[in-house]
């Protein structure tokens, strides 16, 4: 069988994604706080900035390493192996 990978079926991806998303939203930080300022960003927006980079990196990793389905199309022709109630 060809090596088929589908992001939805790789369970660990999703909790990691949710964690990155939630850490990028300032719900857990003291409301009204501003300092320190880092590169023109208040610290909480800087955290969000870093988490957004982490998000893009992580999604890139998932796209490259956890997604490979096209080989199914090659061995589909004439192959009526069991599954799906055939």
């Amino acid at each position, binding site marked *: *069988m*060809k090596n*088929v990978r*589908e*992001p*939805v*079926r790789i369970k660990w991806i999703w909790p990691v*994604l949710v964690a990155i*998303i*939630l850490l*990028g*939203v*300032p*719900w857990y*930080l*003291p*409301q*009204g*706080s*501003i300092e320190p*300022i880092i*590169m*023109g*960003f*208040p610290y*909480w*927006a800087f955290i*969000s*900035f870093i*988490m*957004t980079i982490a*998000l*893009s990196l992580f*999604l*890139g990793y*998932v*796209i*490259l390493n956890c*997604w*490979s*389905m*096209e080989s*199914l*199309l090659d061995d*589909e022709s004439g192959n009526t*192996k*069991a*599954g*799906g*109630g*055939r």
Partner: protein
Amino acid sequence: MKLPFIGWHGVITIAAYALFILGTTLYLATRGVSRKSLSSFYLANKGLGPLLLFFTLFSTQYSGNTVIGYPASAYRIGFAWWQSVPYMVLVIAGYLLFAPRLHVVSKKYGFVTPSDWFDKRFNSKAVTLVATLLMTYGLLNYLLEQLVAMGQAISGLTAGVIPYIYGVLFLVAIMLFYESMGGMKAVAMADFINGIVILAGMIGFVFLALTNFGSLSSATKNLIATAPKKVAVPPIQTSINWISMYILVGIGAAVYPHAIQRIYAADSEMTLKKSLLRMAWMPFFTTAVAFIIGIIGTQAFPGLDKMQSEQLVGMMANVIAAKSTFNYWLMMLLFSSVIAAIMSTTDSVILSLSSLLSNDIYGKVIKPDADEGEKVLWGKIAGMILVFLLLLIAWKPPATLVEIFTLKFEVLIQVAPAFLLGLYWKGLSKTGVLLGMLSGAVLASGMTFSGVKTMWGWHGGVLGLALNIVVSVIFSLVFPDKKEEQDRAEEVYFWVVRD
């Protein structure tokens, strides 16, 4: 956006730019396109390579609003508007929920529109029709919004030298011309040119804004002194609102009909992967740039009210353009990029709309035995008629019932469960998905009509989607499809998991 400095130069630039796009698309992107095949015309024969696919995904996703509206939002909201960057990245996560499987399924069964998935999976005329109508309705309003934006951009750019409606008619005629000749291939080629102009315009503008109005750090210091709330950790309600936007945009933008058709149109999985990989970084060059422009604007033009802040980009451009000829033409590039951003979204929406009319309304309801050439022709003509009706509405908006024209995301997102659940769970029944879509659409539109934009920080579209999912699951369990139907439905996608 008022730009008294441009006038006739603006008219000439828009005309020359539009004719350049027309010439290029006709020359490069009409050969090999069959207007007698739905797949060839609407999906470029499912042969879009990495470069064209990426640019058409990119420039379709970012509209004129990104260039003009997003800096204004950053100006008003402050640092909490950073959310516009991650929520655009999250569209890629939205795709990962269903695109890998949908791509191979669509190749196997030769899908042309999102409705083809409904047809194949649920095998129910009612489900397909309701989904098609929801998508058509959402797309029509989306198109209307783009036409209005186009009118505003043109009237700003040309400073009233010509009535803007002529400008809109001219651009729409150009788009309809290259679309009717080259379909998706022509749209992708135009999007390629538009995408480059969008990027160049935005990056050029932020560079000049930084050199003319001071750095981000000085704007932040100024903001701490004048409006500390815009710099401070926002209240919890804003954080909820932020997460709600993630869901609304992340899932909503991924299931736009024209977005789904780009999954079908990719020539291979590798092409789709490469394009999405690049798309995950594009918000840093678009919405992040718009965000920085807006924050810098708080120092350059303090104290603007909501209406005035919408003019922010125009005000900044006026100041920059007055300083040198180089700046003047660079600002012209920025405004070409506004037109480019609107055009590239509009042409894709028109094409998607035309495909729904052709493949689904005509081809599935009115005359199922029509040949493909006839369907394509019908879609083109019906599409043109609808575009001109919308132009009339955009030109002379009705005094009442304005709300029915504002529903877009809220209704479009209601087709999501049919993909997110329907691709993985054979138990999702016709009754469940139908009642889910309807109840979600009713709740979301009800909230919009009654002027309630959010509830506890959650948007109407997201609450509608949540209700939609709950109703879909409950009614699928209470009124399941027959065993044979479930097996048949599972067969549509189950071959991908049989290892």
